[in-house]
């Protein structure tokens, strides 16, 4: 049985000017449904309405028409906010606080007892790789480090639903990989993740389903695997085939009625190459 965690019905948002005149329709009749435990990627070019939608789902913006619900309740409901986490596009933090103090402050907003706050902060800072720098003021952090504190604060309450706006933006490939691994770990724990990103490779790496927005409207939505699959093409990945035997394979394919378009050697992604080089250096050290 499906269990919708995020749902919108004809959700629309029109921005008006000071005099109430219509200025821009940012979201137009959006119908969206995200099931429990899935990682949903929200895609679209700049100005397509992704962030506006996310802000309506977080209760930061009010819909002009239509409705949105998160965990079955209105997004502005305090009870909803106790069960969600949010990482904004940039980590907007209090620069005079350290990472530990930041997490402690946000933990207090959830009414968490001191011992639980301490325990969660230690665990999350370890998870995002900031254990060594946890007592330094956030103003001394690099953009990537601040981003990781932002991610940790989004998880301080062990949320059921996590909204991530450009989660890997500004991160180096190693941390970016760690963040993606963390997202997959959250999925394994049964959490629901709603993320938007411009980095399509990131979406491809972690998302189960995606929605593509353009000009305020949802243009496509579905399982990522299904959507990117080319139905009338087949790819073989063969190990140990000698080059002089390739012709035989090509002839066999044509004999079976297929049209061979190309025979190439597969390539690793640049990210995989980078991580393997850095990983080796780390092991040597």
């Amino acid at each position, binding site marked *: 049985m499906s269990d919708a965690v995020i749902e919108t019905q004809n959700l629309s948002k029109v921005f008006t000017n000071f005099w109430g005149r219509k200025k821009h329709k940012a979201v137009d009749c959006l119908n969206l449904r995200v099931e429990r435990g899935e990682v949903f990627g929200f895609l679209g070019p700049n100005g397509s309405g992704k962030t506006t939608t996310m*802000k309506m789902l977080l209760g930061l913006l009010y819909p002009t028409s239509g409705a949105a619900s998160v965990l079955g309740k209105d997004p502005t409901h305090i009870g909803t906010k106790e069960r969600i986490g949010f990482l904004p596009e940039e980590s907007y933090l209090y620069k005079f606080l350290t990472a530990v103090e930041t997490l402690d402050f946000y933990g*207090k907003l959830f009414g968490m007892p001191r011992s639980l706050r301490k325990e969660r902060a230690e665990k999350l800072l370890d998870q995002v790789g900031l254990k060594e720098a946890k007592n330094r003021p956030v103003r001394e952090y690099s953009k990537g480090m601040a981003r990781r504190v932002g991610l940790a604060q989004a998880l301080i309450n062990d949320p*059921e639903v996590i909204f991530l706006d450009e989660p890997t933006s500004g991160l180096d490939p190693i941390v970016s990989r760690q963040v993606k691994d963390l997202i997959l770990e959250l999925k394994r724990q049964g959490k629901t993740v709603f993320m938007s990103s411009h980095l399509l490779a990131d979406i491809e790496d972690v998302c189960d389903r995606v929605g593509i927005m353009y000009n305020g409207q949802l243009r496509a939505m579905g399982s990522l695997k299904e959507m990117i699959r080319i139905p009338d093409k087949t790819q073989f990945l063969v190990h140990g085939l000698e080059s002089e035997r390739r012709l035989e394979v090509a002839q066999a394919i044509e004999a079976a009625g297929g049209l061979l378009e190309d025979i190439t050697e597969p390539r690793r992604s640049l990210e995989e190459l980078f991580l393997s080089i850095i990983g080796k250096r780390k092991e040597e050290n």
Partner: protein
Amino acid sequence: MKQRLASLALGLRRSPLGAVGALSGLTMRESVRKKVFILLVVFTLVMLGATALLPSIRPEDRVLLIETWAQRAITFFGVLIAVFLAGVSLPDDIEERRVFTLLTKPLARWQLLAGRFAGFASLLAVFAIAAFAICAVFVRIVAHGGKGTLASHSEIEAREVRIEEEDGQSKVEARSTEADPLIGIVAGGGQTIAFWAFRGVDLTDLPETVTARCTLEVQGQAMMSFGELEIFLRPLSRDVPAAEAAAMGWNVRFVKEPDPNAKPDDPLPFRLATRKIVAKHMVPFEIQFPRGWFGETGGLDIAVKRAKPNLTLSVRPKSVLVRSSPHNFEWNFAKAIAFTYLLWMVVLAITIAGSTVLSAPVNLLFGLSVFVTGSMVGYVRESLPTVAERIKVAEEAAVDDGHGHDHGGGGDFPVPVLRFSQFVSKISLRAIPDLNEFDAATPILKGVDIESGKLFEGFKFALVYVVGALLAGLAFLRMREFR
């Protein structure tokens, strides 16, 4: 299921005030980290150091000047904190988008507003306590040599001292010299009254129970240096609190008609309070009576008559002085700081309310404008009767003229302009808090007690504006969207 239970447990633990406390604590921590406290202490020390430059007349006056200077400076600096720190805190959270993170936590918008208000109110409370402690120690140890209780009072001299002969049998020997401004010496067998006329006394200078200090030269028979005197209070006003005076031991009488031959400035003693007292030669004694006996105009005669005609009484201008009750410096200064704190709360609440809709620089101007206009709104109140009088005169002139037209009876301005001015003034008086309600510098400078009742009135006045401003701010914040 486990997660739901954990979440439920968190929800149960969460108190609405917990989030307010967390935000309030954050504000305090920010102030500590940004060295605001160090700045406050340095400011207080510099301010007190600067009192070395204050002119010194008498030690008591010097103490009053230091108190006033410190109180005014503390007030101004607190207002700067309320406007410049509190006024930008919420706009900064919004402009730097920290509000995205805050409001996606279980933090209601009223908690955001209340948390910020409570944080700065706590900061100002700490500043008020620290400033009070530093100033109190400074005044007691440095300015007063650390000796005795710092008590202060003001003395009001009579505008005129006269001797009235009632029956012509008394003998008044006057021998005023430049060195000794003696009014006269009353001797002989008849009845003669010496009176000290107090006129135009500002009632705000006085406590509810007024003390008059009398030092008289009394010479009885056989070189006895004491004698029985009858003291009179002759008010100018009809409406004086007779029962309260009677409760203080005064014999209150009702005088039917005023003297038709009295001069216009003479008192109209519809009430007369008397009491007998034994006075020792040149030994000060005090009489006490309700402040209300000064009436609205601040006019009262304090008169002295010999109970037995065999006394000789020397009358000098300063023989009778009205003075405020001596008060404890620390307690009075603490009340002054409490008044100041109430003023800060009003400015703080209005500034924070403004910050829900205004950008940081605009809100700073708004906060300062509230302080400046609130400090000056008293002048508007004072001008209202004048404007009403001018309108009345202009309208009467128009009716007398028979045309029903205005011929400039309103002076330089036509009546519609005056009416519009009156309307705007009345609206302003309702909208802008009169910060003179929290004026503690004037009583300190005059050396009079700040009444606890007035402090309570100030609290009620401040409460209305603080609650009103925060509710308005909340209404704006609830409507606001964060793009």
